[in-house]
């Protein structure tokens, strides 16, 4: 198969070569024929799981359908390079590397991901050490016992004239405490072993659910087709009951959303505005549905404290795994103006422009003196045409912008200082504010 042309045209070429009708292929992969038509004519971006399903139906490797070098691979390569101090010139050769040596490029990316995963494991274990009461208690016991052994051994070693009664007493204490120390050490090792053996057991329930959602690209055919009845089977593999409950709650909300705004209606829309009327003006519902269904769109949901409750990344717009996002995102602007629908073009540090739709809405109340919570939702899609855009970032820890007035912590990217001026807030166009 020729490795030229857009992804859409390759799908079309392959389908025609196999003599498959558009409607038939669309039915096979679970989308409407009109949506497939839009994909084939490059009017809808495609990637991830849907591309995988199409590749399977067309009996071809997914890589043969995608563009020569996917943006995801390029982003990941550049990220891996930046994490190891590659300068801007070297980072600029990422596309060439990926084009010439795609296999090696993927190895580099996988290694980068492994390193990141291990760093997260360490972070999670450190967090557990701090907050897990069981481990904290075990460590306290261990350190207390070490302290007794050390003090007692010092006394015996440094007090040659000690009388026989005291010596006997300290020997007995040392014997008992050394046994206690051995038991305590064994208990801690066993505890840590079980955490490692449990795979993702060192993750918090929220992290487990985030991985679960990411693995499914936040879209579940069964939920779309069967509603909440499909959820128990979907979450059955989550061994942590807390993670299972959390995932169930999220999917139940998705099922309710799907009932109110069915997938075929969403797929036929060209953007959020097309859906507002049918959604009864519920802008947050529109943004959630587009975010969940369209693989080319990103979705972020936050609470009033700024914590990311749902983060569906999209190629080119990395979302922070830990901590909050960029305070300049329209998402947070929406929080200060509940009910106001916001649309804004934003620009990431790599120059890519995105259209962000955001809205904040309070939760429903069941009684007048009940507590209401506020949630903001933001939908991300690549801007069709470059224009005036508000500079933002992916979140301070992974943002290379310098001199940003909104920065709350230093970037962990070694190359951040090399991007001087790229994100100076003096560049913020006033009309964008």
């Amino acid at each position: 198969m020729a490795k030229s042309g857009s992804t859409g045209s390759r799908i079309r070429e392959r389908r025609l070569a196999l003599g498959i009708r558009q409607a038939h292929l669309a039915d096979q992969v679970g989308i409407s024929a009109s949506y497939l038509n839009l994909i084939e004519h490059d009017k809808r971006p495609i990637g991830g799981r849907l591309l995988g399903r199409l590749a399977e139906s067309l009996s071809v490797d997914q890589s043969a359908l995608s563009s020569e070098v996917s943006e995801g691979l390029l982003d990941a390569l550049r990220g891996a390079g930046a994490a190891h101090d590659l300068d801007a010139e070297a980072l600029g050769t990422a596309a060439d590397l990926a084009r010439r040596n795609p296999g090696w490029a993927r190895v580099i990316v996988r290694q980068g991901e492994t390193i990141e995963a291990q760093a997260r494991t360490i972070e999670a274990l450190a967090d557990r050490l701090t907050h897990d009461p069981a481990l904290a208690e075990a460590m306290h016991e261990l350190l207390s016992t070490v302290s007794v052994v050390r003090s007692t051994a010092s006394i015996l070693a440094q007090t040659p004239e000690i009388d026989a009664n005291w010596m006997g007493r300290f020997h007995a204490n040392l014997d008992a405490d050394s046994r206690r120390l051995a038991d305590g050490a064994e208990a801690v090792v066993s505890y840590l072993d079980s955490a490692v053996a449990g795979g993702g057991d060192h993750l918090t329930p929220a992290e487990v659910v985030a991985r679960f959602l990411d693995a499914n690209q936040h879209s579940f055919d069964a939920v779309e087709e069967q509603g909440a009845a499909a959820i128990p089977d979907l979450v059955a593999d989550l061994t942590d009951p807390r993670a299972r409950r959390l995932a169930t709650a999220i999917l139940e909300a998705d099922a309710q959303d799907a009932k109110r705004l069915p997938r075929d209606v969403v797929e036929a829309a060209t953007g959020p505005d097309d859906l507002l009327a049918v959604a009864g003006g519920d802008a947050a519902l529109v943004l959630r549905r587009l975010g969940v269904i369209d693989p080319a769109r990103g979705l972020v949901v936050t609470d009033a404290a700024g914590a990311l409750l749902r983060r569906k990344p999209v190629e080119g717009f990395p979302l922070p795994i830990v901590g909050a996002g960029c305070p300049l995102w329209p998402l947070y602007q929406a929080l200060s103006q509940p009910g106001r629908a916001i649309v804004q073009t934003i620009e990431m540090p790599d120059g890519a422009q995105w259209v962000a739709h955001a809205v904040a809405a309070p939760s429903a109340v069941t009684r007048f003196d009940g507590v209401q919570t506020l949630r903001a939702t933001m939908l991300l899609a690549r801007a069709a045409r470059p224009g005036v855009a508000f500079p933002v970032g992916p979140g301070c820890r992974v943002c290379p912008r310098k001199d940003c007035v909104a920065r709350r912590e230093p970037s962990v990217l070694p190359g951040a200082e090399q991007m001087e001026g790229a994100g100076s807030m003096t560049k913020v166009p006033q009309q964008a504010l």
Partner: protein
Amino acid sequence: MTHDVASSAEPAADTPRRVLLIEDEANIATAIAFILQREGWRVSTHSDGATALEAVDRHAPDVVVLDVMLPGKSGFDILGAIRDGRRPDLPVLMLTAKGQTKDRERAEALGASRFMTKPFSNRDLVDAIDALATARASAGE
């Protein structure tokens, strides 16, 4: 709950200064008491957090060595009560196995005179207690 530790560890000073050791681990209390007695301290030990303040009033120590994790009441609560009560100037050395920054900060905020983490060296502990007592005596002159 409170015990005056027998002086068979041969005190080295003529006028023993008094230290109250509030620690629920019997073996560590025994070891610390032994070390301090050899350095001339008169040592009382107390193992219960809930009644620790009464022990402070009863023994009128020159220095208190206070563990953080105690049954009945935490070392932080006891320290807060000492500082809020009639002994705001009483030297208190906090002793804990939880050497976390937040514990140290909390102890300092509550007015701990010194903070040591387990495991510690016997010499460091004795020196710290001596220093606290000396500083207090100098301030009282």
